[in-house]
């Protein structure tokens, strides 16, 4: 289902816009990341996308049709929405919780039970299927909340901070599940404060600032990259920073900081060229007698993007 936002504005009190003039679209099969500083209006935007809130002004269209009293229920049934908090019933087990929501989504007996078992399996909850929710860990609760969103195979997934509380395995699984959903034709909107989690996942990024949105196609954002420098950290056992600086200069890189860290140095580099060109730098450093113990990116791709575009002013 394609979602289009047209000049969408939202105010809660009639005195201050939380978001305004949002204009972007989410196509089937695409994952859109929604990022921005605290108070930028991410949760409000997600709730509007999930039809939980009506825009104060502007229109949101679902497959070209704005929701109405008559179509709202049908649209909601095609959306999986994970909002703030866990929204769980402490005395229910994960199996009961999913069956309850499955029935709410209109799944009948056998189909519901089948969907519940598959979802429990997908989110690695089978082992805790009959444990009361109150006894689950934070990560397991988050898995259960996510499972609820995927239970009815929605065409749209709107998830707010989905990796919150998940362990590393859970985060890896989540990325895989989100990508699989998108590959299956779902439109996915995901927000997270931890930009590294969205690295390599999102096809598009919507950066919210001052309540307005700036849309960036990640695949075509090389111009943004070109205009900026990526930060790398080089670890070496040499104690001669001049030698490192000379090699870096030859590659149009800049040594911004050198920290002595026995038995060698930790050097911060500003790299302006393509990531692939780093291999040449490493080769020249080794050739120049600088043993390279490690070279790693300091910030994620999205963090750098965000750094360039957003000013992080909390509103």
């Amino acid at each position, binding site marked *: 289902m394609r979602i289009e936002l047209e000049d969408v504005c939202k105010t809660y009190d009639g005195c201050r816009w939380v978001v305004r003039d949002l204009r972007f679209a989410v196509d089937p099969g695409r994952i859109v990341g929604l990022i921005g500083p605290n108070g930028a209006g991410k949760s409000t935007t997600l709730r509007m996308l999930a039809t939980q809130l009506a825009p104060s002004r502007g229109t949101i269209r679902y497959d070209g049709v704005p929701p109405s009293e008559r179509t709202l*229920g049908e649209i*909601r*049934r095609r959306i999986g929405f994970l909002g703030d908090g866990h929204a769980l*019933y402490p005395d*229910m087990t994960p199996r009961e919780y999913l069956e309850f929501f499955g029935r709410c989504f209109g799944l009948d007996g056998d189909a519901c039970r089948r969907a519940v078992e598959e979802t429990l399996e997908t989110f690695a909850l089978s082992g805790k299927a009959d444990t009361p929710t109150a006894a689950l860990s934070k990560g397991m609760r988050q898995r259960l909340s996510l499972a609820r969103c995927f239970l009815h195979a929605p065409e749209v997934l709107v998830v707010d901070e989905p990796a919150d509380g998940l362990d590393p395995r859970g985060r890896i699984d989540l990325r895989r599940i989100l990508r699989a959903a998108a590959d299956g034709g779902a439109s996915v909107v995901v927000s997270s404060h931890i930009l590294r989690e969205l690295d390599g996942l999102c096809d598009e990024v919507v950066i919210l600032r001052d309540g307005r949105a700036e849309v960036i196609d990640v695949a075509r954002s090389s111009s943004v990259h070109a205009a900026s420098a990526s930060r790398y950290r080089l670890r070496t056992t040499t104690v001669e920073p001049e030698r490192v600086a000379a090699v870096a200069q030859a590659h149009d890189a800049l040594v911004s900081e050198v920290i002595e860290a026995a038995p060698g140095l930790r050097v911060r580099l500003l790299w302006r060229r393509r990531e692939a060109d780093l291999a040449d730098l490493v080769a020249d450093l080794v050739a120049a007698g600088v043993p390279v113990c490690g070279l790693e990116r300091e910030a994620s791709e999205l963090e750098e993007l965000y750094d360039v575009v957003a000013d992080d002013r909390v509103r």
Partner: protein
Amino acid sequence: MSNAPRARSFLSPFLFRALRGGRRARAILAALVLSALSVVTGLWIAQGDHAFEREVRVGLDLEPRRWEREQAEVIRLQFSDEAYEHALRIRDRAMAAVDAGRIPDDSEVRTFLKSAFDEASLLSMAARVAVPADLDPARREHLDGLRREATRLMARLQPIYMDLDLGFGDLHRDPYFGGVPWTDEREVRRLERIVELGGLPEIVRYRSPMGPAETAGLIGLAAGFLLFVGGMVVVPFAAGSLLAHEVHAGTMAPLLGTGLSTVQVLVGSFVGAAARIGIVLAPLGAIFLATAAFAGGLGPALGALATLCIVTVALSAVAMVGGHALGRRLMPLATSGLLLAVLVPSALVAWFVGLFAAMGLPESGPVIGLWPQVAVAHALRTAALPLGLGVPAQAVVGFEDVQTVPGDALPHLAGWLELFVCLAAVACVGFLSFRALVRRVGTTTGPSLRRSEAAVAYAVLTSCALLALGWIPEITSPGWITSHHDARHLVPIAAFLVTVPAMAMLAAARVDGRAVRLGVVRTVGPEIAAAVVAGLAAVLLSSPGALEDLPAAHAVSSYGRAAWVALSVCLGVLVLAVRPPRFAGATLLGLAFLAVLVIGIEALAIAEDAPRATSSVFFPAAEASPMLAAAEIAVLVVFPLACVLRLRPAKTRLDVAA
């Protein structure tokens, strides 16, 4: 999809949630236990021979008080076999003393003889008062013979009573009677019985006099009480606290995100909460229907259950509104505690008022209009134990005025009329509460009630208040209008003030969430002013004598105060709803509400004082102290002003419609 499958479809998840796991089995077990408990309790109260069970039956008007029965039947009741055997021995000793013509030095026998003083009095009077000459000759001959027997027996007893502390002279004082009512069949029967017993009452081992119909009725009443508790406390509590939990845990948004409409989610939540309790109550309902049908009739029993259902649903809607409002600000446990603190006392008091109302006391009926739980208790009691059932006392001579009058047509009819009015009002309030809840849950903007809905709700509540206060005979009877009190002046203001809390709640429901900072006073203020004017006009128009003999100054002062109270309470509640203050502000607001209450009482006092005009009309507090008057003026000015300032609109406004 037709309505039935659609209802089944959206109710299915909520019923699954309520009855999952072992919950259904536990509910069935509880139902069996409670059903058995109601039967055992009913049987125990109906057939128990001890003082407690008898007192309960006396309280329910199913049998006369002990002294009434002892007097009417010339007996002394004993409540245990030991006491009975002992009392028989004492009576034998007393009889021997009478035969011997001297009083023994036996305190128990002396006490027994003293207790028979009433019987001796009747004998004494029969001996002294001639049988009227205008009676049927056969009847007169029989009564003359009875009088001779009484005279002979009195002569035999006379030495004994002369020796007692009472003295023979006391017999002639006739403490209870003005003369032997030879024409009163019950008194004649009583005299025959005294003569037959030789002037001393018979000793009787007390046995419950309840027959099958009364026993069935008491079993039905026990089941009715459990149904009442279930409907008036447990179901509203479960529905309200469930919603508080949903709101607090944030589960309402995911539920609405499933495609179910707000109405479906709320109805489903209620049905889910009620389902388990319904399983528990269903057998009790069957017991109630069966026993009430046996004792009285199926119609009243069905009517009572319908009343119970209507009030339960309406009360649950109100409890859900409360649960939703409180759940957003308090922990669920605190919300549940508050709901219980309101529901339990009001239900228990209502149960006893309802029993009282069902005893043919018409003045209790109008209470029902403002207190729906009383209507339910009244209906259940009347259905289980119809008026006239039981063994009411044969009126003891001289005490007719304290006897209840079962089956009196007028109060009975008035009671049912009140019941109907109450049900209409409570159904209306319940429906509007649900509408408000749907709007509040479905969206965070817009008022909870439309202007027309708020106006209807206020009209219904004002009508109930007028009906309730206007029908209390103690207040409206001419005898109550004296030089010191005048109910004509008091009742209209009291009726208006009773509606003020409802008016404030409705004003809060009229606040548009989106327009909170756009000026609540500007948007809701005119409606509050209109409600105050309409409310005062309604009470004045429905009370023709309200302004009669009321001096203009009193009228201005009392009605002005009442209007001020209404406006101030509405503004205060708006502050609580829109911009709730922190601890210090909340404390000040609480004190201000107390001051408003005092000023409301002053309004009543000024109207009531009109015939005497003994105190200052405009500032009665000044008579006590000028400082009090100054404080009152400060409250009158500062409180509404502070509320208006607190509710002042924001400086910047967005053009949302653009």
